[in-house]
């Protein structure tokens, strides 16, 4: 009975997040309908620009469920992009490079996970060192901005520019041409990641044990779960998902540079928090994080469509939203505690 009521509390939070997204988007449609905000493509563009962030947010949700944190993901993405760009420039194929990036992600995650799980060092410190390392390594690989052009690698270029058309929701533009809405490969990847992580969290033994470890590590250990190994695997999964996100990000930007994806980890964390994941662990859902990313994307999209607002507004608006959400969360928590 008790479990049911607490579940409902979190479902309400998720509904608030989804509701807010709908309200924001509808607001955008009403205010900027004339500027094309109502077209399906606007929504798809939010997905396209944030495909990488969706993967990263899924990974962070997994880590946050175990009461951990990973602030190295943004730097890891920068390193991935640089590896891809420099590797392909020196003539290595797109597929081997992508596999290499994933392998590096696994190794990097395993190392961080080992430090956190087995040596018991605070995740914040370990991943902060990881962030410094990746950001520095990016510069060690190459200090210039390297773009990936068609001449450098055609497979990668084609992959990035591949349009997957959607059979409905098109519109006729001012020149009278019919515009077919499309998505990129990255969106498919991101949505697949989202669904797989959701199913994993919901139906696999590993997924359930993540919640158990985050809820109360001591009782999880007493139940016979290997807390250390689960923590380590959670961090590995996060780094791998971040690497997948890095490939998506690279397909989007087609370049590697030292200052890429600066602060992306904080975007991912705020998305997860807006989506109802608690940093204390044990509570959260990847779909919430997905809508968190969409809310962030909608805000930037609205500010961009407006065109007159200063570039700092998306940050401020996201922060205000974050503020509102955590206050709502804390009120929920207080109510629940009182009921107990």
């Amino acid at each position, binding site marked *: 009975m008790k479990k049911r009521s607490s579940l409902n509390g979190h479902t309400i939070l998720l509904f608030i997040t989804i509701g807010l997204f709908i309200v924001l988007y509808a607001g955008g449609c009403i205010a900027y309908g004339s500027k094309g905000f109502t077209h399906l493509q606007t929504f798809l563009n939010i997905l396209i620009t944030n495909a990488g962030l969706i993967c990263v947010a899924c990974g962070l949700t997994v880590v946050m469920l175990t009461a951990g*944190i990973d602030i190295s993901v943004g730097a890891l993405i920068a390193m991935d992009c640089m590896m891809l760009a420099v590797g392909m420039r020196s003539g290595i194929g797109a597929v081997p490079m992508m596999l290499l990036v994933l392998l590096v992600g696994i190794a990097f995650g395993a190392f961080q996970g080992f*430090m956190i799980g*087995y*040596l*018991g*060092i*605070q995740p*914040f*410190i*370990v991943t*902060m*060192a*990881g*962030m*410094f*390392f990746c*950001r*520095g*390594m*990016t*510069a*060690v690989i190459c*200090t210039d901005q390297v773009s990936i052009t068609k001449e450098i690698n055609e497979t990668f270029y084609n992959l990035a520019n591949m349009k997957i058309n959607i059979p409905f929701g098109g519109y006729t533009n001012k020149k009278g041409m019919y515009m077919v809405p499309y998505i990129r490969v990255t969106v498919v990847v991101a949505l697949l990641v989202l669904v797989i992580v959701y199913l994993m969290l919901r139906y696999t033994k590993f997924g359930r044990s993540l919640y158990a470890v985050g809820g109360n590590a001591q009782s999880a250990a007493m139940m016979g779960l290997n807390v250390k190994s689960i923590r380590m695997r959670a961090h590995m999964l996060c780094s791998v998902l971040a690497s997948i996100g890095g490939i998506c990000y690279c397909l989007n930007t087609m370049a590697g540079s*030292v200052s890429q994806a600066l*602060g992306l980890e*904080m975007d991912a*964390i*705020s998305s997860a*928090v807006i989506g109802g994941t*608690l*940093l*204390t662990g044990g509570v959260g859902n990847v779909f919430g994080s997905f809508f968190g990313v969409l809310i962030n994307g909608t805000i930037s999209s609205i500010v961009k469509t407006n065109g007159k607002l*200063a*570039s*700092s*507004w998306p*940050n*401020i608006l*996201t*922060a*205000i939203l*974050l*503020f509102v959400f*955590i*206050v709502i*969360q*804390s009120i929920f*928590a*207080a109510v629940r505690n009182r009921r107990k």
Partner: protein
Amino acid sequence: MTKKSFWGRLTESGLLLPIVSLLLVMAVNIVFDIVSGNNPFNFFMITLQHTTSNGNVLYGRIIDVLNRGSEAAILAIGMTLVVSSSAGTDISVGSVMSLCASFCCMLLAGYGVSSTSTLAVPLIVGVLGGILMGALCGTFNGTLVAYFGIQPMVATLILYSAARAIGLLLCNDLIVYVRNGSFAFFGSFLGPIPTPIIITVICIVIMTLLLRKSALGMYIQSVGINPRASRISGLNSKRIIFITYIICGLFAGIAGIVASSRITSADSNNIGLYLEMDAILAVALGGNSLGGGRFNLAGSIIGAYTIQAITTTLYALGVSTTQAPVFKAVIVILIVAMQSEPVKAYMKKRRLAKAAREGGAV
């Protein structure tokens, strides 16, 4: 005997690790100077150098470390208290620094002015305004953490992403230059000594006096160790956590003024970038647990200077600014791994085994 008791005191106070790290960095410097054929004690050399703007000033690598490390050291003071009382980190200090710098320069130059050599308001108004802005940010963070019970990292994440942006708005998306000698003072020299060093010393002295002469230090530690027990024994836990965040914000404000005075401008995008990381690292290096409770201010400050010494050493070794973080990361990982419980336990086991073997042989 006296040596041993000194050693014992050192290990007990938790200053061993930070001091050893600092000595290690210095040793690397000495080795490097020997290898490259310079004076082995180049690192410690302090000379008087004549500058056109400030007359004779102290010059040397160690002065540089003390000077450049000022902001991190000032932030580390506040961060230590926050970590101790709330078992969480304030990740907004870097952004708050930037906001305070922007606010201060905005006041001094007037809104919308991008470059000025005459001050719009008296210097003291601008500087106090900047510092008070820091306290205001601290109040915001403190309210969320102490009274709403939100995890410190999430609560401070709000200002982490917003403060820099608000600073940009205040400056009308411009980099505001205040080309006035009186404003540049905080980042230049007082006599031969760099002013940031003096400001840091003042901050440390005031804080030490406050913690030693009043019960605040003890209260903070007791709240950090067990907030509920402290409340039951009559402490207002929430208010103490709240106060630590305000102090942290105040110091972020001071650090922001110093940072912006160094470059006589408010570069919102770059002031205090990643400094929150350095401050948190300083606290961890200083032997403080990030899980709250007992704290050691001296350790944090030595930690801050150790980080700066590492950075300066790396630059001296010819590592570029963007590549330096790799080495920093490796050093951090080594230090925290040495500090971790399993490694400590393993070392202790080995030491005991060795002692037992030797005992058996005799």
